[in-house]
């Protein structure tokens, strides 16, 4: 049975980022202020061969986090210049 991995990114800084989202600073404030405390922090993620990986911009990803999902289901992987956010589901989110 396949899983679905929804992925998004919130930039912390854009010093070496080409074509960052124009509203990256707003997204950063929104995530750090309202959601970051709820997310599960991880150091690594491995994607299985049976997983569909779907990239979303942060605004669309934000809108997906409604019942039955909440920000406590989100995994956060922090890198040098961004937070990578992951949501794993057994069914696609439409």
């Amino acid at each position, binding site marked *: 049975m396949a899983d679905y991995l929804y992925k998004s*990114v919130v*930039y912390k800084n854009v010093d070496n*980022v*080409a074509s960052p989202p124009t509203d*990256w600073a707003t997204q950063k404030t929104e995530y750090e202020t309202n959601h970051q405390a709820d997310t599960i922090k991880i150091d690594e993620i491995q994607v299985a061969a049976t997983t569909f990986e779907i*990239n979303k*911009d942060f605004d669309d990803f934000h809108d997906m986090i409604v019942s039955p999902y909440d920000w406590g289901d989100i995994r956060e992987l922090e890198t040098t210049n961004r937070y990578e956010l992951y949501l794993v589901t057994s069914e696609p989110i439409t």
Partner: protein
Amino acid sequence: MADIDNATSDVTLYDELGNIVGVTLNTDTSLYELNVRDDRLSDSLYELNASPHFYQEREEYYTFAYVGTLGSKNETPIFYYQNPTGSGVDLEFYDFDLGTPANITFIFRLYFTPTITVNGTLQTPHNTSNGSTNASSINLYTLPTATAYGTLVETAVITIGTLRVPLEFGYALPPNTTALVTLEASSANNDYYITSKWAEDSD
């Protein structure tokens, strides 16, 4: 005959038969040019600081390494090379080393003569001879803004891992010419690594 291992202030050049070799100076440039094939004799002349002045052709090698993130999957300008008028050198591309830890595809492109509206961030290339005080004569900018990419002259594709793009000095930028490197990713928000190496030939 002069003993080239025991330098004196007077040096006469002889051929293998003992005949004095005439020397012609190239005065086309601001420096006198004397070409000598024998390496031992060349070294001896250099140590003598002989007159007329001897100098070797200057060819310096430079490198610039950059780590960045593509926030978009669209083709994006990364490096902008500008060889200014009067630099006195030709930039000759040696290679590019590309890398990504992401399980995606990057397309590398090299263009000549792009139309640039914003140069980007001026960077400092490094001489590949550690400790050399010779600085690059060209301007290298990162993340420029281009309205037209120019003439496509080279492409390469990289998936996860590393890839060397060997150019072996096959592409050159004389003074008053420009070049652009772009990257295009199969998905947004992924890191890349790129190292550019080139020669600057004063011929």
